[in-house]
């Protein structure tokens, strides 16, 4: 009897996946136009009907890490005597968004298949 095929080349990293989802949410929020941190938080909450919500400032380490990794670019601007930081998507971020969106879709489709099958089984 042959052994079943492994589910993938790499072991699934649930924590990394959750972090990746947050990154994708930020990237998706920045897809159309540059935004400030609070606008990203509002946009993510509105677009996901409140399913995803940034709390306790968790948005900032995420934004700063993504900026350091070159996925987004932060620019300081001045207006009405105040300095504010605006984030925009970089080319790397755009590529990452499109590649990771496909990967997440695959993972979620696999998960949904499993859940549907489990629901169809008699109790």
């Amino acid at each position: 009897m042959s052994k079943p095929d492994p589910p993938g080349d790499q072991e699934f990293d649930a924590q990394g996946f959750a972090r990746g989802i947050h990154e994708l949410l930020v990237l998706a929020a920045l897809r159309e136009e540059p935004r400030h941190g609070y606008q990203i938080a509002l946009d993510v909450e509105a677009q996901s009907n409140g399913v995803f919500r940034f709390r306790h400032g968790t948005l900032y380490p995420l934004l700063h890490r993504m900026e350091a990794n070159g996925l987004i670019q932060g620019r300081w601007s001045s207006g009405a005597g105040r300095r504010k930081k605006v984030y925009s998507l970089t080319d790397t971020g755009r590529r990452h968004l499109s590649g990771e969106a496909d990967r997440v879709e695959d993972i979620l489709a696999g998960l949904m298949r499993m859940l549907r099958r489990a629901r169809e089984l008699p109790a």
Partner: protein
Amino acid sequence: MNAFQPTLRRLDRDLTVPIPNRLRILRELEFDLEALSGELEARGVPPEQARARALDALVPDGATLRELDRLHASHYRRLTRHFSPGRLRTIERSALALATAVVLFAETFLLLRADWLRHASPFLWPVLGLGTLLFAAIATLAFRLWVKRDHQDPAANLRVILFLSGLTLATGIFGALADLLRLAGVLQAEPGLAGSLLLEWLPASSVLLSFSLLLALAGGLAWFIPAHWLALVSGAHAELLGHPLPNARPGAPRSLDPARPHQPASLGESS
């Protein structure tokens, strides 16, 4: 006062990242807090509730602050995180002593080979000694500010640099005057030696004054550049948090609590 300033001051105390990075984080947060609460108010949320929601969404909690600390820590802090503070201090002091010894050795080696030192003023040696101390003080400050990125209480280092620069210049000028007086005394006693004595005195005095002026100028620059930079940082701190960076300026009072040297004494905030 900005409604979020007490929160920003608390975060200023709790974050341990270098001050310029900390100010950037707080400035970004300040704008977002005001803009988000304003936006919520515009949507009909009562002001108190809007502020509370903005604080809940954007103000970092303990875990997020630690994450920000990790992200914005200096390279030096990341590299040395495995050393205990005591051990690190010993290593830093040893490295400084070694660097000073190398400078002293190189200085001595070069000077002993120089022809013009055969008739050097006796005051040149204290000037060069002060120059070595000045190098150690400048190296310590530069290491603290730009390698270790520790911007707390640099006023003492700045005062030492300014004092050593002034002392080097004063020693040089005093030495040149003392040499001149000595020369005048000898010339009065033996006018026939004027030619040869003047030929000895002139280069010795020029070398002494040149060295003391150059060292004092280098010290003055080494004082001015960080002092000016710290004044800018302190100004940004004052603009954002309502008070300048404590102990950033030479002559500013020292903090009473070394564990929290940048904690303002009278903020009246309990959180």
